[in-house]
């Protein structure tokens, strides 16, 4: 394993310190914790937003701490959900008197640890709501199993919930908005090469030169199917077909689109995928009113990408386009002329 690090057992702590140093205008690390919070706390009386999960998905989640998105991000060990005590710290700091929304990705570990923390917060008298993101169409949705995973689409939920909270909406409204986003959100990803979690020291799976994994999650695990490598255009076609079918999108429906790199795939290749996605959507007569392309939710140095569509309604589009100012996502009317 070749990695740029100092102590394998301290990667998360070292990383959090490095992030806080790199983004002093945005981030503070709460001492003795793995909670990153806003350098300038949100106004009192506004709903706080907390997210988090295993580390290794950077810039998720601390990259989204800031105006218009999260108030606190809680980091677990690499690919391991954070523990309830840490999540509770995040909830405490995010609470500005109007309650806190937890944005959870649908993994058993994340869901359970956040739920335990939520119970603890309630016991302390902090109002909390939780939404569970499950955008991954690679996995069948079912009440009798764990259901679908939460992957890169989570970023758009952060954005939408954050905009509502910054707007001064109450907890129920923020939570309802986040759930509306989740209902209209679908993603799917694939990997050309695995990643190596530092503690494990070896790749999470191995692929031959002409093989890839379709339907991966974000924890370095293998996907739902192994297949020969295909041109970007065919991959775009496959994942978009799956997403559009699952969302029952019709010609004329407009969407937001997130093209997300898994870590090692260069921006050049993501841009080529973006081109293919744009042409596919154009052929399907599905206008894209909001696009993001880059590394938003990674799996360490996995090579690959995911595509997310969010079916837009006027309100969702407005919240998506609202200003935000975080380490990894900044938008606004700043320099419009």
């Amino acid at each position, binding site marked *: 394993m070749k990695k740029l690090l100092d102590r394998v057992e301290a990667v998360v702590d070292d990383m959090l310190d490095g992030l806080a140093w790199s983004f002093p205008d945005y981030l503070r690390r709460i001492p003795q914790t793995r909670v990153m919070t806003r350098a300038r706390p949100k106004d009192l009386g506004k709903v706080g937003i907390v997210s988090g999960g295993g580390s290794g998905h950077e810039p998720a989640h601390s990259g989204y701490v800031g105006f218009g998105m999260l108030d606190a991000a809680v980091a677990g060990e690499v690919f391991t959900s954070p*523990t309830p005590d840490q999540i509770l710290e995040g909830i405490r700091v995010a609470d500005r008197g109007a309650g806190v929304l937890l944005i959870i990705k649908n993994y*058993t570990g994340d869901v359970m640890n956040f739920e335990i923390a939520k119970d603890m917060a309630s016991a302390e008298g902090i109002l909390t709501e939780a939404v569970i993101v499950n955008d991954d169409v690679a996995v069948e949705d079912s009440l009798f199993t764990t259901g679908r995973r939460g992957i890169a689409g989570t970023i758009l939920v952060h954005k939408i919930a954050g905009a509502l909270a910054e707007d001064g909406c109450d907890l129920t409204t923020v939570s309802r908005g986040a759930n509306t986003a989740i209902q209209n959100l679908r993603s799917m990803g694939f990997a050309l090469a695995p990643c190596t*979690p530092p503690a494990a020291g070896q790749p999470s799976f191995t692929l031959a030169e002409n093989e890839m994994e379709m339907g991966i999650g974000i924890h370095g695990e293998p996907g739902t199917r192994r297949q020969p490598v295909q041109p970007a255009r065919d991959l775009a076609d496959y994942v978009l077909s799956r997403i559009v079918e699952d969302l029952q999108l019709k010609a004329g429906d407009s969407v937001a689109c997130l093209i997300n790199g898994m870590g090692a795939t260069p921006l050049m290749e993501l841009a080529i995928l973006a081109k293919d996605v744009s042409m596919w959507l154009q052929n399907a007569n599905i206008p894209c009113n909001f696009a993001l392309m880059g590394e938003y939710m990674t799996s360490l140095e996995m090579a690959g990408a995911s595509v997310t569509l969010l079916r837009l309604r006027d309100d969702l589009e407005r919240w998506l386009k609202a200003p935000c100012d975080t380490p990894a996502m900044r938008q606004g009317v700043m320099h419009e002329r």
Partner: protein
Amino acid sequence: MNAEQFMRWWICFGQEVHAHLDDLNELDRAIGDGDHGTNMDRGLSKVRELWSLPKTPVENLLELSKTTGMTLLSTVGGASGALWGSAMVQASQKLPVQGTCTTETQIAWLDAIVASMENRGKARIGDKTMIDVLRVGVDILIKGDPPSFSERLNTVASSAREWSEATRSLIAKRGRAAYLGERSQGHVDPGSFSAALWWECLNRAMGE
């Protein structure tokens, strides 16, 4: 069960998990995310550290179960951390604050641990999780046949790895492996394997 047995049991569990660190990670790599051994090992070594402090209330079983749970809860992370941690905290209420506990109490407490996990994790036997080893074991202890607790416990400990092995043919319904669907078949569930180690250590600790 007395406090010393409790501690010997969990120290043994920690040692066994540590000895099987790579095996557990390897099992988890096949159908999960490769960290089950690392997760459990991180938490269990913290539990041991706790007891090497001078001021441990060694004679308080309730407290032992609760602090074990709290420690696991705040150090393991992941699905196993939430399940083991919160179960040990919740079930601790069944244990006495002083002295040993009776076999009946111990069984009720073990049942409460597993029930708490079932409650939180929604897994049932056959879902290819640690419940496949824990629930089956507790049910044998509850059933009272053979009448000797230590014999039943012997049976559980000596069968636990088989139950774990039996998860191989199942399709996972809960936890991370569920995302693999049919691809999860042919692999043993990592949590069921660590659960087997837990039974083995309990048996060893109670026999000493």
